[in-house]
């Protein structure tokens, strides 16, 4: 644990930060200090608490316990604005710009330059923004509404907004996730210049290469706690990866059963410009195939393209032997392909509908009487109890709103919903994110049972132990390309992480 030094050069010092959300403890007593003129990298798996820590520093969340000191003085941020006034600017992963406003307006929102103290000085706003972009070496139009800019440009506008605030501490959460090589180089130059100006940069990224290029200090987090840190020179890649995944790596139970041989899903040369390219793999009956990779590597988009939620540029998808046309989810569902999104809240549950309604939403046509369309409550209840038994879903009553269930129970209801359609191939994105340990085990047991029944599962997950325990085989993606295809024996957390951080090509 790094000692908390109290000398003046400490711009921001957080001590003993705790933060919990219903059902999950996000931060468990975290100490974190940032020194002027240093780039401080923060690494850790998804869900390790990095983003939550930054949102606490940035004033979005208020900590349950612990204190935050800004250059020695204790500080309380009730809103991002107060954090900004205290000199801390945070660039969040999900961009937060007003789409209808232009780049110049977004950057100067809240602190518009004034002429004679009253009028917005649009000219100087445009000039300052153009100079900023020039200085950053970027050619982004200043007076075009942000919604018309490319994703990469929007990311750079977000970065420019933070920089222009003359903040002492600038936090960047996955800044390069949608940038091209050229833009990444520009970011490097900007960060180095900020460092010379004596500012502190907190840099969150999965790409170890970038960390080794830029950072002076590093903090490694896991499961809401700081598990290691200090000057970067004391660490090498393997040490960091081991810290990132270093659970007391007890030999978790690997899949012993054999997957089937019949190919149920064949994807050939799938590509979507700028997101993922040239992805090919086969999925066999009764097999669980993991797809790993760090945020922004294109695995979620790949899953959505296969299911038909978004279109793909080139390549083909064959389901159970026939080609699957890419014209929307209905066709895929009819052809027995199931899909659960990683964003349970906005693309999964129907929050204000009952547990029973959520479970049976996809099989209403089968349950309802032919002509009248009447949905007998008994038939629905029977369908629900059939799944409840196998998955031990705990809820107060079938008519209880789903939003009042715990994360684990909500996920089970969604699984019940998609399995009720009798799908032969199931695509799951982050099925156990924000799920308590007990529910996780039950979900893994369910996946094994499904495999036994011949259902194939494509598991998109960043929970490495889960992938090792549940998958027969694992693909790894880095910046839109398949960089690893590891069989069960070759699978290890370090191996996967090496491929995921783009360090070496993984052997098949």
């Amino acid at each position, binding site marked *: 644990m790094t000692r908390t030094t109290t000398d003046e050069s400490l711009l921001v010092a957080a001590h003993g930060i705790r933060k919990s959300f219903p059902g999950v403890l996000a931060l468990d007593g975290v100490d974190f200090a940032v020194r002027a003129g240093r780039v401080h990298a923060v690494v850790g798996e998804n869900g390790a608490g990095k983003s939550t820590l930054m949102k606490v520093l940035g004033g979005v969340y208020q900590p349950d316990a612990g204190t935050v000191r800004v250059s020695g003085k204790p500080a309380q941020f009730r809103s991002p604005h107060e954090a900004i006034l205290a000199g801390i600017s945070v660039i969040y992963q999900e961009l937060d710009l007003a789409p209808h406003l232009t780049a110049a307006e977004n950057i100067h929102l809240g602190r518009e330059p004034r002429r004679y103290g009253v009028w917005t000085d649009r000219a100087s706003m445009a000039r300052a923004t153009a100079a900023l972009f020039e200085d950053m070496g970027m050619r982004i139009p200043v007076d075009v509404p942000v919604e018309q800019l490319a994703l990469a440009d929007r990311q750079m506008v977000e970065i420019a907004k933070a920089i222009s605030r003359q903040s002492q501490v600038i936090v960047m959460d996955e800044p390069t996730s949608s940038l091209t090589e050229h833009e990444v180089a520009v970011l490097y130059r900007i960060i180095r210049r900020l460092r010379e100006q004596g500012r502190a940069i907190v840099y969150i990224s999965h790409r170890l290469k970038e960390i080794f290029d830029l950072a002076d200090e590093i903090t490694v987090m896991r499961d809401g706690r700081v598990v290691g840190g200090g000057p970067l020179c004391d660490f090498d890649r393997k040490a960091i990866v081991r810290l990132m995944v270093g659970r007391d790596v007890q030999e978790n139970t690997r899949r012993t059963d054999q997957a089937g041989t019949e190919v149920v899903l064949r994807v050939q040369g799938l590509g979507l410009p700028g997101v993922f390219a040239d992805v090919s793999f086969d999925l066999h009956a009764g097999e669980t195939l993991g797809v790993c990779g760090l945020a922004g590597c294109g695995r979620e988009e790949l899953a959505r393209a296969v299911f038909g939620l978004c279109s793909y540029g080139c390549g083909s998808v064959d389901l159970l032997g026939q080609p699957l046309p890419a014209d929307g989810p209905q066709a895929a569902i009819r052809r027995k392909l199931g899909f659960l999104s990683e964003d349970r809240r906005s*693309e999964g549950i129907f929050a204000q*509908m009952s547990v029973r309604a959520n479970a049976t939403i996809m099989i209403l046509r089968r349950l*309802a009487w032919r002509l009248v369309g009447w949905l007998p409550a008994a038939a629905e209840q029977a369908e629900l109890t059939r799944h409840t038994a196998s998955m031990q879903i705990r809820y107060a009553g079938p008519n209880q709103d789903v939003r009042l269930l715990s994360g684990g129970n909500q996920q089970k209801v969604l699984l019940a919903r998609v399995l009720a359609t009798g799908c032969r191939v199931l695509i799951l994105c982050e099925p156990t994110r924000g799920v308590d340990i007990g529910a996780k085990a039950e979900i893994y047991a369910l996946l094994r049972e499904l495999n036994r029944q011949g259902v194939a599962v494509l598991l998109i997950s960043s929970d490495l132990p889960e992938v090792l325990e549940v998958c027969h085989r694992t693909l790894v993606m880095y910046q839109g390309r398949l960089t690893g295809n590891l069989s069960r024996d070759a699978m290890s957390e370090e191996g996967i992480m090496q491929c995921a951080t783009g360090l070496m090509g993984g052997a098949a």
Partner: protein
Amino acid sequence: MNEPRTAFGRRVSAALDWRERSVFAALALLFLAVSAANPRFAALSNVLSILGDSAYIGIAAIGMTLCIIFGAFDLSIGALLALLSVASVTWAPHLQPVVGTAGFVIIVALAGAGCGLLNGALVAGLRIPAFIATLGMMYVYRGAAFMLSGGQDQRLDSAWFLSLANGDLAGVPVVFLVFVGLTVLGTLLLNRHPLGRRIQAVGNSPKAARAAGISVSRTTLAVFALVGVFTAIAGVLQASLLRGAQPGRGVEFELYVIATVVLGGTSLDGGKGSVINTAAAAVLLATLQCSFSFLAVNPYVQKIIVGGVLVAAFSMNYLRGQVEDWRKRRQQQRKEASV
């Protein structure tokens, strides 16, 4: 609360769940208060006439409840009501001898569905926000109503037509029975029919609905068609009561209908609502209106009272929602801690 064992037990306890039914509580309180002030208010004949009056806005409010649960508004139902009642009065003499009374009502309902589909097509096809599309169609339907009637009021008092709204079964006005029937139908459609589930699903989250294989555009067309049907039925019954149709009818009708739905507790953000509560809110507003004449309330003050009640009731939903969430979450935590 203890867990009722049988499915029926669970359903009854849900129905009587006092928090959901605060509109009924308000209705009972208002009725008792006014009856105390003027005993004649509680006379059976008066109660029946109140129930009859509540049907006209109530029936249209059922369709609007489905639309608001779906997450949209339909501002064109006032003008559509005028157009459909004028159309039904002009077509009646030719159609009724051929298809009979029931057939006639079905045809008018289908015409309503047709106009509803037009609204739905604008929203789903051209992706115009429902608010703008229906505001535009309001002007078009109003113009069409005046065109069809040449600006003049249409008159029709053939016996079969009048029996629609003025008949009564064992004393109870047929209109109210139709209203109760449609409320039950609406509730069953919402809770016990695939379309109702799809409407709630899209209202909760269009993205999740699409991922669950629900066709959002087809559901949009269905919802707006339903709004058209319920508006058509309300239009025919009003024409029957008033023995004719007026192209200028139904100005601000859509605003009162939306107020009734929100008074019933359906939230404007969509996703959750109850047809029965809307029906109770319709009866509550009719009772309030009737109580004004029983209590000889100054006509101008009446508008102030109705406005005040609406604003108070709308804030009530928000406050009640907060309290309910907090209590249910606390209950949930206690359950998880004990398990």
